[in-house]
């Protein structure tokens, strides 16, 4: 077989494998989406329709009457504030670690990685007690602080790695041009670090939006409830009503997918450390 034919064959096999993986990964989500748009009596029909013949929003409307918009808002507030706080702190820490050498630096780096291996559930009881002491349980603020703390190590690590790929000549040039180091960070380094910042932000967003364990332990009141906990409650509330259940799942998944799709070109280069040549 000539090499062109072989190359074509390899490409077709690759494409087939990719399609297969996509189907396996996406099918549950697409099925959930389609179920959430089917009228109740069509859901359990056999043979099942992949694309609903008579799509309806009745299940979404039902969610609204149980107050899902409140929980979406809570999750959104917590996630967005966490992302900003976490990325800002991580940028400062990552920059310091990337640029300066100081006593104890390797210890700091080691600890940052080491604490990432502590399983969250083991921290729940002491954290709850601590939070209650501060009066921050059943508040969104408490969740923001906790999520920031849990995601800082990863965000610092991503940004530390990314800042190392940016030549320090840029800050040197900016400082000689008359800017302080902090200003040089803001005006020169951060604009060049967009991929890294977005990668760190997306990691943090995913965690904050989807977290169930921490939220269910710390917040029991209805006012401070976040979306994952609300969906869990629907399991009991709706029993086996697949319509509202899948609709709730879609409400939870779709925003994150949209954000990823919008930022995907930054996310990928941020993960591989990007490369900006001066």
């Amino acid at each position, binding site marked *: 077989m000539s090499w062109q034919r072989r190359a074509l064959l390899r490409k077709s096999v690759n494409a087939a494998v990719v399609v297969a993986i996509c189907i396996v990964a996406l099918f549950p989500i697409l099925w959930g989406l389609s179920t959430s748009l089917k009228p109740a009596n069509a859901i359990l029909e056999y043979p099942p329709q992949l694309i609903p013949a008579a799509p309806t929003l009745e299940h979404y409307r039902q969610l609204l009457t149980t107050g899902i918009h409140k929980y979406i808002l809570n999750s959104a507030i917590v996630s967005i504030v966490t992302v900003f706080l976490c990325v800002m702190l991580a940028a400062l820490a990552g920059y310091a670690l990337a640029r300066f050498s100081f006593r104890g630096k390797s210890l700091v780096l080691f600890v940052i990685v080491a604490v990432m291996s502590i399983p969250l559930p083991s921290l729940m009881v002491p954290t709850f007690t601590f939070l209650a002491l501060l009066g921050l349980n059943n508040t969104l603020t408490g969740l923001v602080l906790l999520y920031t703390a849990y995601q800082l190590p990863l965000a610092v690590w991503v940004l530390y790695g990314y800042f190392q790929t940016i030549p320090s000549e*840029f800050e040197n040039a900016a400082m000689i041009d008359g800017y302080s180091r902090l200003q040089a960070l803001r005006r020169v380094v951060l604009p060049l670090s967009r991929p890294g910042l977005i990668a760190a932000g997306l990691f943090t967003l995913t965690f904050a939006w989807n977290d169930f364990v921490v939220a269910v332990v710390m917040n029991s009141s209805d006012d401070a409830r976040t979306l994952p906990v609300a969906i869990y409650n629907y399991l009991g509330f709706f029993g086996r009503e697949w319509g509202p259940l899948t609709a709730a799942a879609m409400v939870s998944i779709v925003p994150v997918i949209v954000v990823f799709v919008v930022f995907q070109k930054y996310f990928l280069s941020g993960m591989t450390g990007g490369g900006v040549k001066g």
Partner: protein
Amino acid sequence: MSAVRFVGVGKRFGDVEALSDLHLAIDAGEFVSLLGPSGSGKSTSLNLLAGLLPIDAGDIFIGDRRVNDLPPDRRDLAMVFQNYALYPHMTVFENIAFPLRARGRNFPDADIARKVDAVAATLGVTDLLARYPKELSGGQQQRVALGRAMVRDPKVFLLDEPLSNLDARLRIRMRKDIKALHDALQSTIVYVTHDQSEAMTLSSRIAVFDRGRLQQYGTPDDVYNRPANLFVANFVGEREINRIDGMLESAADGLRFRGAGLVVALAATPARMAEFAGRAVTLAVRAEGVMPTGDETGVAAKVTQTELSGPDQIVYASAGDDVELCCRADPAAHLRKGQSIRLRFQPERLHFFDPSTSRSLSVA
């Protein structure tokens, strides 16, 4: 424009002493090159002056101000980096305007535009103002980097091997441009390079560094014709210098050098050399100081290799106890490999060094 003074400046990195006890005085408006091989301390000196590295010992003065504790943004310097460090996310205009927008410099936008346009016109980059650095060629980036340095009228310009990333022809062209710029601005320029021809053509004075120490500080003529030690003699000049170890001995008609199987007569002995009679010395002479001659009293040698170098023929010849000498010949002589020739050493081009200290004996 300001003068710059290094007084006893030192810097170490861990166990390595990158710079020891540097004393250097640069006058206002002077173009001084810091010349040396890698690791000689020249870039370290520049970075200490810029404030990018903290000093370990000594003081640095810009004008009358002691700047040891001043951060780079307060020293009123401008620097051009080896790889230009142009901000990739800004246009050329914004790059050049950037220093003018720093805190404490409240230039109105109209003024900024005027200054940037003036600088761009001087450097010939007006057409490039809307482009981004990655769309420019090496030479264009270099001129933009120069523009960014010039726009502020700083007290001192620092240039860190700015031409080393350019191809040979462009380098020679930019050398002319930089020299013209210096003449026009009359600015104090501190220029780091490892290329001795750059230092020779551009500077009013050259500071030669080796292994963290200043070896010699003088005009290009001083450094080329009166090197203070063997390192300077070898490093400055197009090619390595010819070196022969031997002895000075008295003869009927003055002093003679004898070493490695050959004898070189010194003309009219300078008074100060007389005291070195009977002493071991290292003779050093540049290629242009050794020439083939028709004179039968010249040193016998056999040609081992020839190179055509523009207007000259460079001839490598083996003389005495297999000592290889590099000399310059007229290409019209058409010397061939294996040919036997006689070499004449020009007495006024001979340098003598103490073999143990490498210090020059012929310079007072």
